[in-house]
């Protein structure tokens, strides 16, 4: 997976050079660029992520710099709208993102330059889901997110805080990556009690079919942060 990242990053670097310079000229320069929002979203392969990505160019005091040029790049067919532009009065530039057609992790890059012309970079990791992972996401929405997602809204009230053992967020890779795949499938299928964990996690077999449980596990792996790296596979040479 790390090699894929490097390959994507390399491609991004190559891609940078090909971008036609139709971008407007910067009227101001900052000393740093930060990601404001929009990172770590998941969408179907080739689809648009829900929220735009927002980058902010800052001056030495950490205040937004209006009029700085920001360019967005991404390998593997990622499209940005707009692909580049000048930051607004708050020092921010936002772009809607359409991910590439191949499922996997994408590393989107927002670049600006300081006064000396040195590039400043911030990355937005995003995730493109394949069919199985999309199925997992849909099942998660219906069955799991009520408890596993602690974010509450009027339309969808979270049950997370009502449980004595707080469930893990599915993106909690630090914890869930430690659970091997057989155990992950077993917890979903047979519930927490069967594995000596909290009975508040109910058994989802036979409500969900084996392939549905596989899909949920695939989704959990896909959105893990930090990314999930399967154990036991070592390659001498790519």
């Amino acid at each position: 997976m790390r090699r894929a990242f490097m390959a994507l990053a390399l491609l991004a670097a190559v891609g940078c050079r090909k971008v036609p310079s139709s971008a407007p000229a910067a009227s101001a320069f900052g000393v740093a660029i930060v990601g404001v929002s929009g990172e770590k979203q998941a969408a179907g392969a080739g689809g648009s992520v829900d929220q735009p990505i927002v980058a902010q160019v800052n001056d030495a005091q950490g205040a937004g710099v209006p009029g700085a040029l920001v360019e967005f790049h991404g390998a593997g067919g990622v499209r940005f709208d707009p692909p580049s532009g000048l930051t607004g009065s708050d020092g921010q530039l936002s772009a809607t993102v359409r991910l590439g057609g191949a499922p996997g992790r994408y590393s989107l890059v927002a670049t600006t330059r300081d006064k000396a012309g040195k590039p400043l970079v911030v990355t937005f990791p995003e995730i493109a889901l394949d069919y199985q992972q999309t199925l997992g996401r849909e099942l998660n929405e219906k069955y799991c997110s009520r408890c596993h997602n602690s974010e509450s809204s009027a339309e969808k009230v979270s049950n997370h805080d009502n449980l004595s053992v707080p469930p893990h967020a599915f993106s909690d890779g630090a914890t869930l990556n430690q659970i091997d795949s057989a155990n992950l499938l077993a917890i979903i299928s047979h519930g927490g009690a069967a594995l000596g964990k909290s009975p508040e996690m109910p058994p989802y077999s036979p409500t969900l079919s084996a392939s549905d449980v596989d899909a949920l596990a695939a989704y959990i792996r896909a959105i893990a942060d930090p990314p999930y790296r399967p154990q036991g596979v070592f390659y001498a040479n790519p």
Partner: protein
Amino acid sequence: MSARGRTRSAGRFLFGGSARSFASLSVVLLAVLAIVPAKDHFREWLRYQNQYQSLIRNRSDGVSLARRFQGGVQQIWLPDLGVVDRCATCHVALKETSLAGIGTEPFLPHSPIPHSLTEFGCVMCHRGQGAATTVSEAHGATPSWEQPILPARYVESSCGQCHERPLTGTPQLNAGRGMLARYGCVRCHKVTSPEGRAMTATDVPPPLVHIAEKTTRDWIFAWIKNPQAYAATATMPNFQLSDEDARDISAFLIGQSTPYPAEANRKTPPVPSQDDAAAVQQGASVYGESFCASCHAMQNAAGMMVGGDIGPELTGVGSKAKPEWLAEWLNDPKVYDPDTAMPHYRFETKDIGLIMGFLESRTESDSLSNVHLDPATPAQIAHGKSLVNERGCAACHTFNGVAHPDNFAPELTAVGSLHLAKIVFAPGMPHTLPDYISAKIRKPRSFGNALKMPQFTFSDSQVDALVTALLAQTSRAKTLPAALRIPAAPPSTYRPAGRAGALMNDLRCFSCHTIDARGGDMAPDLTWEGSSVQRSWLVNFLKRPNTLRPALIRRMPKFNFTDEEASVLADYIMTAYQTPEFDRDQIDASKFSAADAANGKDLYYGKYACESCHILDPNKDKGYIGPTLTQAGLRLNAAWIFHWLKNAQALRPGTLELNWNMNDDDARAITAFLMQQKAASKEGASR
């Protein structure tokens, strides 16, 4: 020596005798024969196969990868499906999952899908020219093959060729199909499924035959000029009418309007003064208590849209609806619109006045501020009528004197296989079918100002969803073997009969509840409600619906039934809506022992941790996904609880309750425990 002389001497050198001729021809022949293997050697796919072999050579699993690798042209031939695919010639690692994230295209394994690659081939889902063995011909459009690779974001459309029934794993396709019905697309465009069933619309555009009773010409003018200026969530598209056309259509709409039928039960309360802040506040309370927000959205003071989307947004309704009309509507909506989804609340006259006062106070002035219309002339009215005919308004709305147009817009049944040669592309746009459909939806008038299709307000993902649903409408879908087809459930024709049936129609139960596969999905499925609940509880609930699910903001409204009405409905539900799977009297709750219940309590809080989702003891339990069980013993039937615990999914498919697959002893014990729960009901629980 001249040039001719040089040629002649060269000719003499090569063909100067039979031996020389023979030698020269042999050399030529050899060269010609070498062309074929040389051409073969430089084939694109061979280069990819060589690249693949060097990719896997140094891997630890290289030996097994190499053993599974087959060189040469690889072909999938599926005569039944009309598929000849050679994609695997270059995409050599489609089944090598160990290469996920390692290789790059064309050496990536296929992501997991429920179908076998060899049984379905590639072009069924991805399109492109399967038989081609070069990248440009296989992926791109050529003069003899119009179908390039389908962009990944539309790939769910291919599932829709066979899957007419919604699939959990294709949210985009499902959303697109929902939109075709919800936004009225299928009212103008005919869309037929492969088995020949026409898609039907699910929106309820109001009839306009009494429009003058409801609103003013000024408001109509502003609305048809730009519906979204009045309400951001309006589903009516923008027809981009000129001021003159909007003036004439509004003139015609008022002109053709007839008064209410004389026999209508008119009960108009006095219009309360809008300056009476206390009355408006009271009206807001009645609006809230009647759960109008379950269906209608309204922008609150903070600018947030709150409420459902079954009925129209009411943020600025005071600028639209005349108070007298609003009173009539609240009294009985069916008089104005016989097909409305809105139930007939049995409001008291006082409450009608209060809600009316509240709604009339909700005005918006922006869209009406610049409207100044002179009185309509007969010529304007006549022109308005011809515009209504021309624009196909009657495809959605009913008018006096305008017939419903059939097949007003091009049929879209096979739009997913439209030939590019038949498409007139707008200048500068990519010549592909998805781009064409997408551009048509985004900005129909970019193809010409004379086009009739209106401008919708869709987000990018909504357009993607619509394009996906339309691309699923292929001509291939019709020729596929019937065994592959997963037809949609046939539309339910269920209609309850008799006095209760008439009541249920009056109350529009089906706007929210499903019974026998007919109805909405906002409220619980009532198909087996008669097996589920106790009659005494049901009568009480109908008269005073209290909240069963604390986390829900959409709730059953209070319809203000008479005792007789509640009793008729309860009798019908208890009799007609019983499952044949078990006898509702098979478990006698009075025979449970205290030990059974104690055992059940242990299981409830221990093994099954039911309190994670249900509140049984309000002082202790916190879970609020499932319904509250404080009164389970008064509300539910014992046999229902028992079978529900064993397999709820069989009783109500798709319910959030799991199929616990519980053994009889555990199910009996928990049933005993739940039947003990008879907490006194709290007055005003619904507030």
